[in-house]
């Protein structure tokens, strides 16, 4: 059952990720990116990471993609006109990609743990939110506050960047 879920969600995620790269219209790309993120949150749920799955839907598929669509609509981008392709650059990019995929395959196949299935949990129904929350506010308290400062700095930075003149 889990393996069917895994393959359906992976094919959906990878297929819509390919659509993001292939589509010429930016709005279509953004909508396929939303689909890809939703399928990825389903994959997180198959890994018993419910909290991360919910966060993925809320933050990525919700907030980040709304921001992307807002900017695409704001800039009023037309469908990209076809330009002359630089063939050397395209072949170079594809060669880098082929090498990268080959390398990933080699590394994963030679990794000793990659043939293992996931060990069973001691009991089902862990409360993800409380466990992650305890780790977040206990062990990782300082990084959590640093992240808060980072969000504040990025908010101020966005306000300054989007002022009328950058003087």
């Amino acid at each position, binding site marked *: 059952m*889990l393996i069917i879920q*895994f*393959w359906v969600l*992976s094919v959906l*995620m*990878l297929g819509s*990720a*390919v659509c*993001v*790269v292939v589509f010429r219209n*930016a709005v279509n*790309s953004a909508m396929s*990116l939303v689909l*890809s993120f939703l399928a*990825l949150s389903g*994959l997180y749920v*198959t*890994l*018993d*990471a419910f909290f*991360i799955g919910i966060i993925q839907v809320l*933050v*990525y598929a919700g907030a*980040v993609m709304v*921001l*992307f669509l807002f900017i695409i609509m*704001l*800039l009023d*981008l037309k469908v990209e006109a076809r*330009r002359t392709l630089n063939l050397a650059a*395209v072949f170079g*990019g*594809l060669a*880098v*990609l082929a090498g*990268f*995929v080959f390398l990933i*395959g080699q590394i*994963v196949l030679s*990794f000793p743990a*990659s*043939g*293992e299935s*996931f060990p069973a*949990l001691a*009991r089902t129904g*862990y409360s*993800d939110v409380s*466990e*992650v929350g305890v*780790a*977040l506010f206990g062990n*990782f308290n300082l*990084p959590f506050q640093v*992240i808060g400062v*980072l*969000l504040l700095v990025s908010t101020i930075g966005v306000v300054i*960047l*989007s002022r009328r003149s*950058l003087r």
Partner: protein
Amino acid sequence: MPLLGDYLIVSGFLFAIGLAGVLLRRNLLIIFMGLELMLNAANLSLVAFARHGVTAFGAPDYNAQVLVFFIITVAAAEVAVGLAIIVALYRLRQTTHVEDLNRMKF
């Protein structure tokens, strides 16, 4: 049950697709979407490892999930700043096409 290697292969393919978006597309917004795909590929392999390396109590390793939480937060901040830079650039030059932005090219 799917194996750990299945998740790692899928995560590697997702990273490769994101890299393809960054390398082959010329629209700044699509390049940005490719960056997001690459970040998500890293998150997927982290969550797979969290589920694989169960702790002594038989629970998933929640430290890795906290790391994923931090990555998602940093990615959200990065998207906000990057899109603001793209909007400022568009105001200045009326384009988001990388080949039209060659002022600093040697």
